[in-house]
């Protein structure tokens, strides 16, 4: 069987992203007093130099993935998943701590975070499970199994204190919804999140009053024949009660369930003046960097905020600041626009798949990238709590770049063979 045709648009966008990402990392670590040229061995001690190595090795990974038989990924999905579950179990015992996170393996000079790769493994197994014609996501039995596949790695990652990475698994809801999960689940989740956020920002009592008014208006405006239905009232009353319960638990959740550093991240979001030397500082500096960029930015390598190391983690989680400061509104418009184009394209490709495995996997990829994209940019501008979520293809980091490359190219490989899958 011959290799099919890769989707040129997605591949070009991938290369465009990694090159732009690298240039921004270079700029973030660039020291005008002592610029290092790429032939200088010292260069490879900087993030930009190391990222260049990660980029090179990513190319090897791509060639490797494209060379493997496309059926491998479906057949071996359970094995890959199992292997990563074992790694996640092993990491608390055999791992090393980097930047306060005990979730890394050290092999020689290379450090690998298995949590990054577990997303791909989960997407593969979930897709394989859904490929079974028997599986129907409207039935509880299948819903439970799917939830289990997602929850197992998620819980293990939470156990190693990487809540941010664990939350990424919530993005599989997109995959499940596309594959027939009733809309009430994502709807419910979105509602709860909305209510929680509202409850954080507004006093619970006000929400009660508003809800009560809304409920009365709805009840009064319902058609007469529905008003008579006892059940409708009951449902409405139950709904309001639930919402009240959720809002009243917010304080408890924030103060007792969340750990201190998580709680602080939420407080900062609501009040940037909170913790001005720590997290608030990070967010304020991030906003200053982006906000001071203007329409066209300060120019490549000319950003002062990022050069002065004002923005912590500027080459990893806060790489978007460098783009904002140096390329301005125009730059961020281009990057976000290209990302949206990229997501549209991937979704379009996913929808074109004839095999349910490839389609589900494709939606998994879209979900994961979308989640990262949204949360990462959201946290640099104060819309999302600060958590260690990198910007796909842009952020510095080997595990992150490798895992996104693998995630994407498995899908592009499957896509290239979509006609072969049809013939099965």
């Amino acid at each position: 069987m011959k290799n099919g045709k890769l989707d040129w648009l997605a591949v070009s966008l991938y290369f465009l992203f990694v090159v732009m990402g690298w240039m921004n990392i270079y700029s973030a670590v660039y020291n005008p007093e002592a610029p290092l040229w790429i032939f200088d061995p010292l260069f490879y001690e900087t993030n930009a130099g190391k990222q260049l190595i990660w980029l090179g090795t990513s190319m090897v990974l791509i060639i490797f993935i494209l060379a493997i038989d496309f059926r491998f990924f479906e057949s071996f999905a359970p094995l890959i998943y199992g292997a990563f579950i074992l790694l996640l179990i092993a990491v608390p015992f055999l791992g090393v701590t980097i930047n306060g996170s005990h979730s890394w393996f050290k092999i020689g000079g290379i450090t690998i975070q298995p949590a990054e790769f577990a997303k791909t493994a989960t997407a593969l197994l979930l897709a394989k499970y859904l490929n079974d014609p028997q599986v129907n996501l409207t039935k509880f039995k299948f819903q439970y199994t799917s939830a289990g596949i997602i929850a197992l790695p998620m819980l293990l990652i939470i156990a190693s204190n990487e809540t941010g990475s664990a939350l990424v698994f919530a993005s599989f809801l997109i995959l499940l919804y596309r594959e027939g999960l009733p809309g009430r689940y994502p709807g419910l989740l979105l509602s709860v999140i909305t209510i929680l956020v509202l409850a954080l920002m507004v006093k619970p009592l006000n929400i009660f009053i508003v809800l009560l008014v809304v409920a009365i208006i709805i009840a009064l405006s319902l058609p007469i024949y529905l008003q008579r239905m006892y059940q409708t009232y009951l449902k409405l009353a139950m709904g309001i009660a639930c919402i009240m319960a959720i809002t009243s638990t917010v304080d408890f959740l924030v103060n007792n369930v969340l750990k201190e550093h998580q709680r602080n991240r939420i407080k900062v979001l609501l009040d940037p003046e909170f913790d001005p030397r720590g997290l608030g500082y990070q967010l304020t500096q991030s906003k200053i960097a982006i906000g001071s960029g203007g329409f066209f930015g300060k120019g490549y390598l000319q950003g002062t905020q990022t050069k002065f190391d004002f923005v912590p983690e500027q080459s990893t989680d806060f790489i978007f600041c460098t783009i904002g400061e140096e390329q301005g509104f125009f730059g961020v418009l281009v990057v976000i626009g290209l990302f949206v184009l990229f997501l549209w394209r991937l979704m379009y490709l996913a929808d074109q798949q004839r095999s349910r495995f490839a389609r589900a996997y494709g939606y998994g990829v879209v979900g994961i990238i979308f989640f990262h994209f949204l949360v990462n940019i959201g946290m640099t501008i104060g819309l999302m709590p600060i958590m260690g979520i990198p910007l796909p293809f842009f952020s510095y980091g080997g595990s992150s770049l490798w895992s996104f490359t693998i995630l994407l190219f498995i899908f592009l490989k499957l896509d290239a063979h979509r006609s072969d899958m049809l013939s099965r």
Partner: protein
Amino acid sequence: MANLGSKGIKAEINNRFRVFILLITLFFFLLMFFLFKIIFIQGEEYRKEAANTYIKERSIVATRGNIYSSDGSLLVTSLPKYKLGIDPTVYNREPGSTIYNKNIDALAAALSDFYKDKSPEEYKNKIDLARKNKKKYLLINNRLLDFQERKRILKFPLFRERKGDATKTGVVFDKVNVRYAPFGQMAYRTIGYLKDKKAVGLEAAFDKELRGIAGVGLFEKMDKNTWRPIENNEETVPTPGYDLHTTIDINIQDIVETALKNGLTNFKGNYAVGIVMETATGEIKALSNMSKSTLSASGYMETQNHAIDTRNDPGSVFKLPSMMAMMEEDGLELNEMINVGGDRCMFFGRWMSDSHAMGTASVEKIIESSSNIGTMKLMQRTFGGKGAKYYDYLKKFHLIDPIGFQIKSANEKPVFIHPSKWHGGYMLWAAVGYSTSYTPLSIISFYNAIANKGYWVQPLIVKYAKRGGEIMIDYTKSQQRDSSPLCSSKTLGKLQTMLEGVVTQGTATNIKGSVYGIAGKSGTAQKVAAGGGYTNKYYVTFVGYFPAKNPKYTVLVTMDSPEGGTKETNSRQVTAPVFKEISDNIYAQDMKLQKKLSGILPDSVNNNKLSHTLHPVDQDILYSSLGLPKFDSDGKWVKFSLDKKMAINQAISNPAKTVPAVIGMNLRDAIFALENRGLKVRAHGKGVVISQTLVAGSPYQKGAQIDLQLN
């Protein structure tokens, strides 16, 4: 596609696709909205904040204290060094930037020529760019400059404009304190250093005192790694560290280092240690460690403080504490005769040997010839079956516990097994310096007690910690001094006789014949191999004191693994001569020592007939510091001559308008005397004037030339 059979589900799924597209598009607009808000609505405010230089509280490092030698010479100090930077915004303030434009090319050329790392164009571009970007600070180069270089740079084009007013020329020097030792390598390891995370020597031991208390002040961030203090904005002023006043005498230290190097050149040991201790006070006057090093031209460098860090089997020098213990225990007499027997003898199943068969010998002879067998037989007789007593004596002699020196070392505690764990003949072997382990400093502190009328004093290297001139910590107060002697005066007398005998008729006769007299003990320990058993390498020591009759200094010289000697000749050949070189030179320099010797000068000084002519002012200073009686010359030049044991002072007058007599003067005085009378001087050679071409006392013409020969 079985589960997507019905048309309704298909439509539903299509809807869901649209929901996703909508969702992504929605978030696109959401993000763009917020970014728009940050960049355009709040942008002005953020741009202002970004333009503000960043200010932060940071600690200000206090000036580190100096370390001084005993005579107040600086051993180590903190010198200010400077980093050159500029404030390019200054040039934009002036309309048209005329001085800048006029001078920048010349400045760039001067900088390039000075630093030799970048071309003038590169410097120019760098400064131009910073100016255009309105940077408030640009680091020109990271190199640290000394004060002279700083002065030179201030004369560079642009920087010298506007009378060098820095607010107009933009020049900025950042001060950095750097540790500097004016004497270079001298006592390098003893003084120590703080490098990266490694700290050794006095710098480490007294870090707390030297460091001072850091202050707090506001700093401006200028650059990725540069924080500059904002002037006059110190919230807490740093408190400078204390100055350490050590007991190190730089002259004696120099003598010891030279002598050690000479010894090492001859015998090529692994390392050598020299310690000079002032007998009465316990002050360490010199402490030198020379270790093999490929980094130094001489092949040796101060890299490790063996004197306090390295323990070794002391060898025969340990016979003296054993002897002291035996004499205290049963009043052993010097002339008591012992049957030592042949040159081999078995103790507890192991052979011990002497350099030669002694037959029957006196106790004195046993020490003077360093007989192992004799000492061990005596030990067996005195302490056989009551080894614990011997141990108690050693404890009293400060040879069991660490001596508590000011520079701490993990190896300070001697290795000497407790009697409860002794096996076989441990005590006998230990008594002659084997199977035990001591640092050189432990050994010298014991010998110093013998020199110091039996009183043990703790070795001391730092006397005071001072701030300004005020003593903050007086370490002599915490110095341990025994209130009673280690032994009776009878025992002491016997031991001193033995130590003098070692030099006059024992193992170290090669250093006898000094005017002042040396008393000491040689020791040669065969080195133990890593896996046990003895090697062919030796650890050689000579420790003693001088002058023998009235000890002023205690000296220890030790060398590890010298080449070319045998067991019998090692300590005699290797370390004893080094000892003598040290004692001779100290003796020659130390005037107080000589004054007490009723006018007899050492041979080294007394060989020549001395004759000098001195200016009366110099003569006053010289004589009073020598402790000689003042000679009143009535303002005339003084001729001082010395013939063997007689010194003659004579005032000489030079009649006006005649050529003065300058023979015997140094060149400075000669020029002074001659040019005062209008003569032109041409000098040859160096030293003192031995001849002059115009005869003294003869008339002369102004401007005539006189040739002087110096030697």
